[in-house]
């Protein structure tokens, strides 16, 4: 049983998704209970893998349909032939983000998404989205990755357009699937170029025979551009505000998780697929690649936050912050990539490059938590006032104490104020980037200040001020599930902020080691 955990993590949400039409007949409460149980089991399975994979540095393989699934290659064949799942510390880290975000988001959505009694479109699509993201985290096969990418984009687009009665929601969904389809087509083209040369889709096998020819660089361009497009980095960020603004609040949070997973996949392809191969033939120019990633990151940070400052729509504001925060991760990891293969025998990488990467990867996790929390609170604000415009909101702090407190926690965390988790990862990024190039660190700090400014605007205009009950359109108290989702996320933010050492040593550091180790 235990060696089937990798495939169970992907199949559980898939099975649950296709059970929805059946469980829907049992009623609303029972159906939600079943889904929450399944998501809890999913998280339990993920955390069961932590001692083996993260702490002891093992790598678990799972070959689909083989007599001994835990072997990478089958007896008698020197190369991998079937779909292989691979769980190392980095993919486990990605999986844990998806697991936690999915659980809290679903808890929140039980109280906020309205469905007719026996219909279960929302939960079916939600679980399919989860399955797609989990598959993207764990697969070691390029075509399989493509399939999971498509599963997540199709279900994601349907969820963005879920409230079809609203004027712009279907168009936002159309935009999301348009961008996703272009990205996946580019990705598949890159995969085709790899297959043409090496006759395999297995990431690890391709890496072991990679010749670093000119064609490989073309393939890398196609694959990395596709991933950056899905993650919403700056030149390809125009879909982010529209899509995040029109989706239901819980789906904005899920889209954010999807962006994080594609970002992780992009880093994985940079190192595990196109990294230095064991055959020792040539290598890509890491310094140039690193600088490209850094420039993308700085542009994302700066353009995202300056656009966010002038928004009046709370969800668009948060979506632009999502672009801006993506920049921090790109900056941290980009510095790591730039010094990764420098001529000094890895001295610069040991001195500050690894710390920059730890900061960038840690920021992915922190960002997934606090951004999720902020999107969920924006959902509560939208429900209360029936509008997303900040000019129409005032004095929510008198009514919803819990929402006010968790919003403050989220806003302070995103701005990098000490007791919360954003501070820890941002400090790691500032310190290490300063050693690489002081100007970049100063830009990063400046962006952080602007982030605080724009969230103070939101807090002041929607939570402070006199109590205005006449503006409230939906005054029903939050359900238990909604509260539970918010409280779990707030608790995670505070705990990660107070004890960053445990998380960094236990999960982040092994993830970075697994990512950068040269096979």
């Amino acid at each position, binding site marked *: 049983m235990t060696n089937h955990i990798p495939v169970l993590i992907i199949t559980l949400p898939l099975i649950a998704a296709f059970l929805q039409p059946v469980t829907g007949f049992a009623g609303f409460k029972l159906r939600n209970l079943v889904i929450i149980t399944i998501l809890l089991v999913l998280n339990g399975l993920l955390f069961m893998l932590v001692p083996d994979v993260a702490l002891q540095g093992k790598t678990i393989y799972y070959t689909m349909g083989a007599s001994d699934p835990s072997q990478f290659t089958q007896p008698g064949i020197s190369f991998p032939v079937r779909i292989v799942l691979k769980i190392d510390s980095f993919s486990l880290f990605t999986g844990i983000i998806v697991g936690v975000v999915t659980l809290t988001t679903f808890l929140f959505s039980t109280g906020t998404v309205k469905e007719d009694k026996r219909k279960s479109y929302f939960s079916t699509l939600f679980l399919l989205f989860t399955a797609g993201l989990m598959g993207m985290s764990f697969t070691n096969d390029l075509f399989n990755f493509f399939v999971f990418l498509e599963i997540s984009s*199709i279900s994601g687009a349907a969820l963005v357009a879920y409230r079809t009665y*609203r004027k712009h929601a279907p*168009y936002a969904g*159309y935009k999301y699937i348009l961008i996703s389809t*272009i990205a996946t087509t580019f990705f598949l*083209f890159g995969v085709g170029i790899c297959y043409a040369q090496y006759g395999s889709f297995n990431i690890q096998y391709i890496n072991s025979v990679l010749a670093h020819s000119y064609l490989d660089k073309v393939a890398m361009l196609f694959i990395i551009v596709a991933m950056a497009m899905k993650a919403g980095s700056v030149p390809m960020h125009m879909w982010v505000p529209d899509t995040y603004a029109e989706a239901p609040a819980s789906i904005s949070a899920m889209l954010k998780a999807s962006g994080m997973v594609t970002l992780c996949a992009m880093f994985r392809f940079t190192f595990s697929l196109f990294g230095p191969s064991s055959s020792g033939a040539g290598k890509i120019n890491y310094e140039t690649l690193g600088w490209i990633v850094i420039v993308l990151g700085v542009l994302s940070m700066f353009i995202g936050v300056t656009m966010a400052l002038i928004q009046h729509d709370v969800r*668009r504001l948060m979506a632009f912050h999502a672009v801006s925060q993506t920049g921090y991760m790109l900056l941290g990891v980009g510095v790591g990539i730039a010094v990764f293969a420098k001529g000094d025998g890895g001295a610069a990488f040991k001195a500050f490059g690894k710390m920059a990467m730890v900061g960038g990867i840690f920021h992915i996790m922190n960002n997934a938590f606090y951004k999720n929390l902020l999107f969920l609170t924006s959902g509560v604000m939208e429900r209360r006032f029936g509008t997303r*415009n900040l000019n129409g909101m005032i004095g929510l702090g008198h009514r919803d104490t819990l929402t006010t407190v968790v919003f403050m926690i989220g806003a302070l965390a995103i701005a990098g104020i000490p007791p919360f988790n954003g501070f820890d990862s941002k400090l790691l990024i500032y310190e290490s980037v300063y050693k690489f190039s002081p100007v970049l660190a100063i830009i990063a700090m400046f962006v952080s200040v602007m982030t605080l400014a724009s969230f103070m605007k939101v807090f002041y205009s929607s939570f402070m001020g006199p109590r205005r009950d006449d503006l409230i359109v939906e005054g029903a108290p939050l359900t238990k599930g909604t509260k539970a989702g918010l409280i779990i996320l707030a608790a995670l933010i505070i705990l990660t902020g107070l004890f960053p050492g445990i998380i960094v040593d236990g999960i982040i550091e092994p993830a970075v080691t697994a990512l950068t180790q040269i096979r």
Partner: protein
Amino acid sequence: MLSIFLYVTVVSLLILSITSVIYKRNLIKLVIALNIAESSVNLFFITLAYRPDSTAPIFTLAPALQELRMVLPSPQALILTNIVIGFATTALMLVLAVITYKNNGTLDIRKLKGVEDHD
């Protein structure tokens, strides 16, 4: 010679579709453009799998052959998957385009002008 011609077709189809994604304004025409992109990738994979003077990859044909020349089966299987995925994408995009037309009364992306601020 044939394969070079095919690769040129693949690249020109891809360029054609990307240009039309950038320049076309009608939501339905964008769907068509994306379908062309998908077809170009499908053609690319099929071209990769083709071997001159070979048979279809069917197991029972194998003993009858003098030398074992078959086209590669795995890209064909993958392209079958991609065609199905493309079908799902097209269906969903057309549905969303129809609902957009119902809600806004236009299919022109310049008139839709993105998602406005909520009032």
